[in-house]
């Protein structure tokens, strides 16, 4: 097995808000190995993006605070790094594709300026060299007539094109670690397949590792090696791809897999998990999933279940699994 590149240990992130304190990420631990694709899935609001931003040290402080834990990148805790060390890491070694392109792209810069900025500061390219490299990158991510779109502004790009601009920026400096937060949600399936091929080729060629955050379980099924499932700030299940898809153990994971609309089956209504997301400012005691869980027992309403290994490489946090 390849060596671990990124290790999260007990990561806990809090936000102090006017209305109270919110724990967005609660004791999350996992590891990503060199050349591995780690899929992070789960409920919206469960803490996936906050986890990703913590790795990049991009949590706004205040109101946010990484209150516990360790994030080791190639053995060094990024939480101990100076701002200068962080700047050297970000973009060049670890790059991130943000979930909402419009929040990360600058509306007053042209597409070329946005991407070439990183190329010029990180790689020291001249203006003209950077421009040529941008054309290459845009065509790599499937933007048609890239040369003619260089001087467009992002509002003139479609949603999926913006997402690909983000990806082009992230890939521009050949990072060894990529965190991609919903990088293909706005793409049609043919371009999605092209992008996934591109990412896979970077993994093969450069030994890049990847954290892939997505709601698209189809993409996860075909690209990820291991998968973490989050619910309400906790990692509730972690395992190899086949563990999660073929032997899911946590009731939330099971519910998630049952919610997927299938191309072949034609039910008029889908089967979502009943109930709604818990209030993160006042989460339920015990297992946070208990109000929605069909198997909830007394102990579930009292005690937080332990996250433990239930089979080699397969972990879950559920009282059902503690019974024997």
């Amino acid at each position: 097995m390849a060596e671990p590149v990124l290790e999260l240990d007990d990561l806990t992130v809090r936000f102090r808000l006017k209305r109270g304190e919110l724990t967005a990420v609660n004791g999350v631990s996992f590891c990503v190995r060199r050349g591995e694709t780690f899929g992070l899935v789960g409920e919206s609001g469960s803490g996936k993006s906050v986890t990703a931003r913590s790795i990049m040290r991009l949590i706004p402080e205040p109101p946010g605070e990484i209150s516990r834990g360790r994030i080791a990148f190639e053995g060094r805790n990024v939480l101990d790094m100076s701002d200068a060390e962080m700047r050297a890491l970000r973009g060049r070694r670890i790059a991130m594709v943000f979930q909402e392109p419009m929040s990360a792209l600058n509306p007053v810069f042209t597409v070329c300026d946005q991407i070439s900025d990183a190329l010029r500061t990180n790689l020291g390219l001249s203006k003209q060299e950077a421009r040529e490299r941008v054309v290459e990158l845009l065509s790599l991510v499937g933007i048609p007539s890239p040369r003619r779109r260089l001087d467009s502004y992002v509002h003139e790009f479609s949603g999926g094109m913006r997402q690909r601009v983000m990806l082009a920026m992230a890939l521009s400096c050949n990072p060894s670690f990529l965190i991609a937060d919903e990088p293909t949600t706005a793409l049609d399936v043919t371009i999605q397949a092209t992008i996934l091929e591109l990412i896979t080729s970077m993994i093969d060629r450069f030994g890049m590792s990847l954290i892939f955050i997505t709601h698209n379980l189809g993409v996860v099924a075909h690209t990820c090696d291991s998968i973490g499932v989050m619910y309400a700030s906790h990692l509730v299940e972690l395992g190899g791809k086949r563990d999660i898809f073929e032997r899911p153990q946590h009731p939330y994971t099971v519910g998630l897999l049952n919610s997927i609309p299938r191309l072949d089956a034609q039910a008029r209504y889908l089967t979502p998990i009943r109930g709604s997301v818990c209030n993160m400012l006042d989460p339920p005691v015990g297992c946070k999933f208990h109000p929605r869980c069909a198997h909830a027992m007394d102990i579930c309403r009292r005690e937080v279940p332990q996250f433990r290994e239930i089979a080699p490489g397969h972990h879950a946090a559920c009282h059902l699994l503690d019974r024997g």
Partner: protein
Amino acid sequence: MTTGDALLEVNGLTKHFPLHADIYSKLAGEKAQVLKAVDGIDFRIRKGETLGLVGESGCGKSTTARLVTRLIEPTAGKVSLKGEDMLSYSPSRMKAARKEVQLVFQDPYSSLNPRKTIMQILSRPMELHGLAASWAEKRERVLELLERVGLGLEHVDRYPHEFSGGQRQRIAIARALSVDPELVIGDEPVSALDVSIQAQILNLFRDLQEEFGLTYLFIAHDLSVIRHISDRVAVMYVGKIVEAGPAAALFASPLHPYTKALLAAVPEADPGKAPPKLTLKGEVSTPIDPPPGCRLCGRCPRELPVCAQVEPPLVEVGDDRQVACHNL
């Protein structure tokens, strides 16, 4: 289908954007170029029906949505709502029509005002259209909406940035529903949601349709979502509709090579199933001054010599299906 039962009818709808000439092409003396985002499309949606719109990223789906809601003006073509030409509406009639046609955007980050609370965001459209008189009434309706879209009531006085991407999309859906529209255009309204919430929202769309007879134009990239929600489906490629028909038939036997390519590229949520396949070769076709002929030329596995010369028209092929391809 006669025009009479169409809630929305679109004819020859066209939107061309002139491009900024970059400095290099200006120096080379090239003439200004035109980006044909939507290039003469026709479709109809019956009352109470859902038309699913799919197609390549950048093919003009959002532009179509913005044209139909008149957020932008077409270069050519006609949009009729209940048989009336929307483009000739007076400003006061247009204001009423804005309530009838609601758009849920693709990117909830940029469509929600960061300085307004959820209460303010959801009550504003009601105020604009005179739907709720007192504060108490508004509050009640807003809480009801939050419940409808599966958001806890405690969120009502929070600001958009305090929510996750998926939660924000639910707020955007609640806002569209707040004025009791007739036609809801969803521009990827469920793409940002986890599949469990997505299933809830799709069921909600279904319930609202049955309860209030809502009509939907539903844009999505996830073909299983489109298959699930749509009665009819239209497939776009670079500004054109290349195939349209009843959802079941179109998915069971796709006719156009692009539709076939789309279906082959779907990653199914089962690691045991075949991985997605790319059946189109070559580079993505461009909407900028596209060459004559079919826009799939150069990428199509079924190409004939005529394809590069003559643009295939969208023709009826029976069973309410239309296709634009020379080689059926």
